[in-house]
């Protein structure tokens, strides 16, 4: 979401558009990024179960990756993974990339 100048926003911190929280990507808070090594993954769904931000993407109980718009990089998924299939890497390695 592009940030606006002080001349472009309502005064007093009032939010005049309902549902605007949807535009707020908490993934920008992330310092460490989870990376999936699919060859080790057994689709146990532990990561999906534990993720506090519902940021694990799955289809029909198959682990597909992460929703980086909302993943805050807490690393719980990597911690609970029984196969060490998730690696936490510093965001600085991905500067300029999408996600």
């Amino acid at each position, binding site marked *: 979401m592009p*940030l606006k100048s*002080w001349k472009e*926003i309502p005064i*007093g*911190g*009032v*939010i*005049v558009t*309902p549902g605007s929280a949807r535009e707020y990507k908490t993934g920008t808070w992330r310092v460490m990024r989870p990376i999936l090594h699919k060859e080790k993954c057994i689709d146990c769904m532990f990561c999906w179960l534990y993720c506090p931000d519902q940021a694990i993407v799955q289809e029909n109980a198959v682990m597909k990756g992460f929703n980086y718009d909302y993943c805050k990089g807490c690393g719980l998924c990597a911690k609970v993974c029984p196969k060490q299939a998730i690696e936490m890497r510093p965001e600085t390695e991905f500067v300029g990339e999408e996600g």
Partner: protein
Amino acid sequence: MKMQKVLEKVAITGAEAVAYAMKQIEPDVVAAYPITPQTPIVEYFAKYVADGVVKTEMIPVESEHSAMSALVGAAAAGARAMTATSANGLALMHEIVYIAASYRLPIVMPVVNRALSGPLNIHCDHSDVMAERDSGWIQLFAESNQEAYDLTILAVRLAEHEAVRLPVMVNLDGFILSHGVEPVELYPDELVKKFVGEPKPYYPLLDTDHPVTWGPIDLYDYYFEHKRQQVEAMENVKKVFPEIAKEFEEMFGRRYNFVEEYKLDDADHVMIALGSTNSTIKYVVDELREEGYKVGALKIWMFRPFPKETLQRLLNGRKTVVVLDRALSFGAEAPLYEAVKSALYEVAARPLLGSYVYGLGGRDVKPEHIRKAFEDAIRGNLIADEQRYLGLRE
């Protein structure tokens, strides 16, 4: 005292004058907690409510913190909201005072100036309001009961102007004005109501067809921008206030401005102060003028925003400027002096400056004190970095 309902001079206290203005404004909501010396304002106003003279919703809250909180809710809902307080009451609402300004809620609050404890003291000085000078409220100061009445009415229009949308404190000196009886010319109800008009709410919460969010968390991505907007609103006051003051003058016949000039035209020595002490200063100016001294006074009606440009224009090239403060800023210069000194940094011909602190905790300020400060100025016996005291036992 029975209030008369005709346009004529009546002898009333400052508190009654302010309460009468509130009666005529007839805000939608008043939430207040009594504290000396503001108490009679709330007392008079509560009687108007009890007698059915006004339709105002009066909320007798359990503290000033709650009073300002209730007004924040009321004003965000779209109501015209008022309260009044003093000293420790103002300090107790401090947290919400900042919130009211940052939410841009046009609340009008007479502040009956009283020394902040401790030691415990109920009498006049400006330590209470000076503790709020960076809160983002517009701050007006009354010299007389008439001015307290007028400025309360004027403040409503200033606060609600769409280019401003800021709360206003109308300061009147505790006991000296609040409990002192003076002649006050009261305007007819219909004229006051016409002047203040109907409130124009900004995204009111009660407009349920257009739901909005008030008071969300505002982090590093937008807080700074909202603060910049407050700076702009304060700058806008400097454009808007003269227009509203002109309308006020056309309707009621009294002229207000950022400052009042008293025998200033040819004055070599100028004294600056806030509030009721200006009457004493004018008395001494008259005496010294009779003795042949070119002295004058500059009364600050508006302290926030500080009328820096006006002071620069009026004080450039004077021989001396003496600033009287009824408050301290421990470890730094007194608040009004600091503001005046800072304003004069940029003028071409800087006057010699003197700082005098007086009247703390209700200590009397007498003509001889004012004269002493003027005599220092006339003799050139001023030191810009020396804080002096009037009426203090050394």
